[in-house]
């Protein structure tokens, strides 16, 4: 059984219907550690040793967050800057994360169609995630395609429920080894696969 760490980042959780529903669907699932960064570090004072220990103890790292300005909320960037140390996560001796998986579970305001070269956002999600993908690569990790809830302002209750269930099923399948990360890696986005 694989162990999954969900790094959750939302500065205003109460306001987010989508993120709350997604979070609620995986919190407490066996083998899943749910880690709310804004709750743990309200002052951004990240406990690096603790974070590295958590990473070591898990096989799949899931970053769950809203897609702010084509990137993550600030605390996740802070987390990357501090936790992924040279000599630990990357570099000649940095092998701590090797062969683990990294993926993003995100919500965006724009529709799926807006994320293409002819759309409003001009790039695909996968393209916009390039810095993060490269970060994972540098750490020797397998970067999985993101799971994205698009058009978050318009998602109806039923649709939201389906997204949440899909998210949970995805994590359970990864945990139990029913999905092979290597086979998923090439896809644009995981919601399409399921």
């Amino acid at each position, binding site marked *: 059984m694989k162990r999954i760490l969900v790094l959750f980042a939302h500065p205003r959780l109460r306001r987010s219907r989508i993120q709350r529903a997604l979070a609620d669907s995986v919190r407490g699932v066996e083998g899943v550690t749910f880690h709310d960064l804004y709750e743990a570090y309200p*002052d951004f004072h990240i406990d690096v040793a603790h974070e590295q220990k958590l990473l070591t103890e898990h096989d799949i790292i899931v970053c769950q967050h809203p897609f702010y300005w084509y990137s993550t909320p600030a605390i996740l960037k802070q987390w990357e800057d501090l936790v992924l140390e040279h000599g630990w996560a990357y570099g000649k001796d940095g092998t701590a994360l090797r062969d683990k998986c990294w993926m993003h579970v995100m919500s965006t305001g724009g529709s799926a169609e807006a994320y293409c070269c002819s759309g409003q956002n001009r790039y695909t999600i996968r393209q916009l995630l390039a810095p993060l993908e490269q970060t994972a690569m540098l750490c020797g990790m397998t970067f999985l395609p993101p799971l994205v809830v698009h058009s978050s302002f318009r998602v109806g209750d039923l649709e939201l429920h389906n997204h949440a269930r899909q998210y949970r099923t995805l994590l359970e399948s990864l945990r139990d080894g029913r999905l092979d990360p290597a086979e998923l890696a090439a896809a644009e986005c995981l919601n399409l696969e399921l």
Partner: protein
Amino acid sequence: MHLETFLAQAFIYLLAAVVSVPVAKRLGMGSVLGYLIAGALIGPFVLGFIGKEGQDVMHFAEFGVVMMLFLVGLELQPKLLWRLRGPVMGMGGAQVLGTGAVIALVGWLMQYPGKQAIAAGLILAMSSTAIALQTLAEKGLMKTSAGQASFAILLFQDLAVIPLLAVLPLLSSHVGAAVPHAEHGSGHSLAEGLPGWQQALLTFGAVALIVGGGRYLIRPIFRYIARTQLREMFTATALLLVMGTALLMQSVGLSAALGTFLAGVVLAESEFRHELESDLEPFKGLLLGIFFIAVGASIDFGLVGSQPMDIALWIAGMILLKGIVLFAVARFSGLCLPESLLMACALSQGGEFCFVLFSVAQSGGALPPELSSKLTAVVALSMAVTPILLLIYEKMLLPRLQKRENEREPDAIPESDNPVLIAGYGRFGHIVGRLLAVNRINATVLDLDSEQVDFLRRMGMKLFYGDASRLDLLHSAGASRAKLFILAIDDEEKSLKIIETVRHNFPHLTILARASGRIHAYEMVRRGAHYIYRETLGSSLDLGKEALRLMGIPAHEAHRAAKKFREFDERSIRNMADVWFEHKDGDAYVNAARDQIAEMEKLFAVDAEVRESPSDEAWDTESLRNEALEEEGKQ
């Protein structure tokens, strides 16, 4: 007594107390002196409102002393009492025997017969538990070492009354005089006339009953009473317990006060301790008040008036002799100079037991009636002197002693180029100092508390004894080369003075100052302190932040709320300082303060609404959502 006369009497007592005690407190004299003066005023010799009944009232009011000892007992856990056994026997024994011997010697030198001198000496060794404990407690000195030592000595004196009652008749000058019973209150002793071993058995039985009963009988009873939920029943039971114990002790010829003290100690660890305390406290206070009034009323001003110089000399002599012995005992037990003086002042009066012992001595023939009544007046008046003595100690002696302490020469400060200067290294300053130290920022530290300085030095910290308000010391501490001046002293006035001095003489220094509260902060703004920290603001906000979090507000939001609050409040200190100085607490200040509060509420209202309903903020997406929906509508 008829109801009318009883009501009239009660009215006079209460009126006297209500009028004089607040006045006395206002004048800084403490309530005991107020009661005594009230008593003297309404007594037979001044206004004459109360006459011989004073004596009856006194017997009744002595119950206040009994109750006080019960409450003192409640405060003392047996463990603490056991720890006190040394001081009680050692200091108490030395005090009683020493005072007895010194006064007896003086009496003998004054040509009184030896036995009379010894009897008077032993009796006058007693001090007033009621006055000493009440006054010390009122001044908050009970927990000091002088307070503890006083308590130990008083405890020993209460114990010593019992053998004294037995010894006094032996000092009778005419052999074969009728030996009266121990006349305490009007209790007839059961033990009287029994052979010695039976008396001893009875005594042990009574003590065992109190200890055993307290442990195995009283607690279930209280539990049962508590279950009835009737508050007055609990009070009644508590009174019943104290009265019963007093009666029991008296009936076997022991001190009632001692008995109830023991009962208190036994119950000190019970779950009813606090309830008993709060139930009995008002009774104790009132009864003690009546007791002091009765003492004041019983002072025989006729006798005093007939030989005023003589009586005054005797009072002064007794207080001086007792004071010297007490002072010697205290110094010998290792108390420091001010504490020893305090104890000498607090215990130098004659005690309430003296009255009992005088009457026993007189009827037993140990003291002639004239001497006994003169000494009674001396003792009663000496009680009135104690609060005055303590006042003198507090207002005149202590400041001098402290000044002498403060005359310690400031330490020589070695030349250094420390960038930071810290004034005051108490509970506030030393945290700042340690934070700097672990970050390798050197600070020169000045503190005025010599004990603190010596103690922290022993812990390896570098600090110097000295007054930061002295310009020469600031110079030698390197103020002209430093960058920061951190002001963390307790004394509000002094801190303002220091800011002025530093601003004037070392304008290059950045001043970070600790303020005790808002008004103090205003004063600092005016004097130009650069950064002002109200000493409890930070920890209050920490606590508030945690409270928000525990009430379900996410940690990050609670953190930001506290930050926002702090920023606003600190800005408001700067804004409000001018208003404060212009209008003091006039309407303009109040209005400005109200505006600030309203503005703060408005500032936070947005957040509060977010919790309830959506609204705009960078992370929130209401406008974004509307726009998105609009776009969609257009398509």
